[in-house]
């Protein structure tokens, strides 16, 4: 599609499929991640639609109980391990991070490519083994069900084990990149907040992922070697698995949300034309969330037979970890105060994020209070809560980021009208689908039920219809995004008038990121000093300073 274009950019230089498969360019690797993730998201989305279709009526609709169990397992595993965990850091982070720092690439380009191959390999392996050996444990793999099961969980866990290394490599790479490859004179507190989000995320990736890997290895040792670790029949402790699992998987939800919060900080500031409010508070709250996030895993286990004292301590720490997230929301709100707000697509997604993530966060309080969690645990309330946080939070932020950096990636603009329509449809469909599930959950509907009692039917039907609306929104998005690649209007160098470094280079950027040495003339959010002309109509280039 760029064949006719004369300018030299990372998409057309060098050419040939080999130059992509062996590329060390972080932008190409980010793009390859994006394509792989789009495939994972499509698969996970189709599975979700099937789950909702089966739940339309209380009895059997389109599949049997065993198939249903496999499908929700695959939906969860694909969405969590293949899509959400790597989504923002590996795709958008890879693409943008070095450009935000004024660097040519990440610190270890070969490791970066390796992490992509490991990701693809692990993904294929995991999906293949879930599919062929019919894993039905849910994405949490709780013992002893997972070890009891006659199906082979070994290859599945091996797949997730491999994926873990991809995550660790990316994390290490980003930490070193942020420490060593910043533009001379670019101080820590002058970094865009997306970088802070990625940094906090990388810390968790490097520290927590090995624990998951160890747990999965123990599972394999038990299953293959007959050593009793989690299986009570062999003298193991099934609840121990839950501790290990959540020791990773709780911090992992911060791997999913922190980079999303980084994107929201960028977008809100840019589209409000306003200096971000409480920069240090936002930066430090990311780090605080990363560290306290390691100490709250027990709130997944209030009814698991862990000690009451432990439960109370975990409950307390959970509340302490809620505070930094709340602080960020107030900061974003204050950023908009007296700004010049433009509700273009990225900002619409940021607004959706604020709306949905706030609901997700507040319902988290219900689950952090042990007395109410006992009733709500393992019901649809939990399902709704984490979809509000993960889809309403991370996916909305991801979409904000995609729309924000789309012109940077491809040099083309998408159709703004259809983008707004799609955002609206997704927002409505999402609330239809998942707000209903809060009510289902409080009424006592347990999660992972193939059939259910008649009294839950109206709400389930409502939720299933919502999932079709949601699906429609994503189909529209796919259409206009793909359309823009071929027929989209050419984008200007800085279509949003942003102040961060990545917008000072040509669009799409050359392989080495910048056409001339990047210079820091101002901080990333200095809208009180600088007005950047938006060259959305590709006429004006460069900036106007006052």
């Amino acid at each position, binding site marked *: 599609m760029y064949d006719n274009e004369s300018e030299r950019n990372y998409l057309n230089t060098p050419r040939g499929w080999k130059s992509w498969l062996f590329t060390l360019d972080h932008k190409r690797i980010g793009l390859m991640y994006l394509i792989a993730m789009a495939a994972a998201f499509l698969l996970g989305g189709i599975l979700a639609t099937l789950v909702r279709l089966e739940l339309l009526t209380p009895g059997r609709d389109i599949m049997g109980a065993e198939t249903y*169990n496999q499908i929700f397992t695959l939906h969860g595993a694909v969405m969590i391990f293949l899509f959400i965990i790597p989504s923002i850091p590996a795709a958008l982070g890879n693409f943008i991070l070095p450009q935000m720092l004024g660097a040519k690439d990440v610190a270890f380009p070969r490791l970066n490519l390796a992490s992509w191959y490991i990701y693809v390999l692990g993904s294929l392996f995991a999906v293949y083994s879930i599919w062929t050996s019919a894993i039905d444990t849910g994405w949490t793999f709780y013992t002893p069900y997972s070890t009891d099961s006659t199906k082979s969980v070994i290859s599945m866990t091996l797949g997730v084990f491999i994926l873990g290394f991809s995550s660790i490599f990316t994390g290490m790479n980003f930490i070193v990149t942020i420490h060593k490859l910043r533009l001379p004179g670019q101080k820590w507190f002058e970094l865009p907040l997306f970088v802070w989000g990625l940094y906090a995320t990388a810390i968790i990736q490097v520290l927590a992922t090995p624990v998951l890997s160890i747990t999965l290895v123990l599972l394999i040792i038990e299953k293959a070697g007959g050593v009793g670790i989690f299986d009570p029949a062999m003298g193991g402790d099934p609840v121990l698995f839950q501790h290990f699992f959540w020791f990773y998987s709780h911090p992992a939800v911060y791997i999913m949300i922190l980079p999303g919060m980084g994107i929201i900080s960028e977008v809100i500031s840019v589209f409000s034309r306003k200096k971000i409010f409480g920069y240090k508070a936002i930066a430090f709250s990311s780090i605080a969330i990363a560290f306290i996030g390691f100490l709250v895993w027990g709130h997944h286990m209030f009814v698991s037979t862990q000690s009451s004292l432990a439960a109370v301590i975990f409950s307390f720490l959970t509340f302490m970890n809620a505070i930094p997230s709340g602080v960020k929301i107030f900061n974003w709100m204050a950023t908009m105060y007296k700004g010049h707000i433009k509700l273009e697509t990225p900002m619409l997604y940021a607004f959706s994020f604020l709306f949905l993530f706030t609901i997700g966060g507040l319902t988290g309080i219900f689950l952090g209070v042990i007395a109410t969690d006992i009733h709500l645990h393992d019901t649809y309330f939990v399902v709704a809560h984490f979809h509000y946080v993960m889809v309403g939070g991370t996916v909305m932020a991801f979409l904000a980021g995609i729309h924000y950096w789309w012109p940077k990636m491809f040099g083309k603009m998408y159709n703004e009208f259809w983008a707004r329509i799609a955002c609206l449809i997704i927002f409505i469909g999402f609330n239809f689908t998942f707000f209903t599930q809060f009510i289902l959950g409080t009424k006592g509907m347990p999660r992972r039920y193939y059939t259910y009692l008649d009294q839950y039917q109206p709400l389930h039907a409502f939720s299933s219809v919502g999932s079709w609306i949601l699906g429609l929104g994503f189909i529209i998005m796919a259409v206009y995004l793909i359309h823009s690649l071929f027929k989209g209007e050419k984008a200007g160098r800085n279509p949003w*008038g942003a102040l961060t470094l990545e917008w000072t280079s040509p669009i799409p950027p050359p392989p080495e990121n910048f056409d001339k040495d990047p210079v820091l003339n101002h901080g990333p959010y200095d809208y009180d000093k600088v007005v950047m002309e938006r060259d959305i109509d590709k006429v004006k280039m460069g900036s106007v300073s006052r």
Partner: protein
Amino acid sequence: MDTTGNIFLPSGQSTIAGEVDALFSFLFWASMILFAIVMGGVGYFIWRYRHRGRETVTSGRAHSTALEFTWTAIPIIMVLIVFFWGFNVYMKMQVVPKDALEIKVTGQKWFWSFDYPHGAATVNELVIPAGKSVKLLMSSKDVIHSFFVPSFRIKMDVVPNRYSVTWFEAMNPGNYDLLCTEFCGKGHSEMIGLVKVVSEREYNEWVETSASLGEGLSLAEYGAQLYKSKACITCHSLDGTALVGPSFKDDFGTMRVLTGGQSVRIDENYIRESILNPQAKVAAGYDPVMPTYQGILKDRQIDALVEYIKSLAKNGAADEAE
């Protein structure tokens, strides 16, 4: 009390439900207010400060210690309130009243079974009296299950190889759904039972008749059950070992020497008498310590025990003949 207008929670039917619901309602309304403030603010700003005309610089005021302190401190205070409130209710949920009726719950793929202190055993139907606290001692025979009664606001995992405990006091007679909430395989969503709450009087009647009386079992099989559930096993062995009382092995049909020196043939009537009036004819060499089972065992149960002891002797006799 639940003030969310029955949109969310099902009607609370246990003594703790009111407290849980009051906390839930507080969280709900506090969240609504907070959400209204945040989204109302965001919405207002979007409208009020919408972009008009040319780009100009905006205010550089991007920090306010007082403001940032306030919006950190107020949420901290609020979560501390709900933490301590939740802690308080949780403690009540954790401390089992001393006089609670204890029922053993067993979860397995894919049904619940309940064992009562009086010997009755039910499957997927937990019958309990209203207005009395009930303690559930739970364990699993295979994978992890979870015991959930939405109307009572209680839930507890049921784990293999360890006991877990929960308790509740149901307020009103009625039938309440019991659901498994830990994924346990193909039949997970079928692992549904019923908690049948009845009045104290009806419960006592049920206890009378329930003890199921060995329906579907032969008398001897039923007797074998009672031998364990009625605790005969504690004092009477099956292998000839003399415990507190004589062993049941090869007992029936033989002559027994009593403490007074006389002998008596061990027949149906002797066993019946020894169960209902143990001190009447005490075997030589044993202390007269057995409690009477008058009023505890029903006729059919006595018949069953007699038949069971008889069956033990027959086996024994057969062994001897060989």
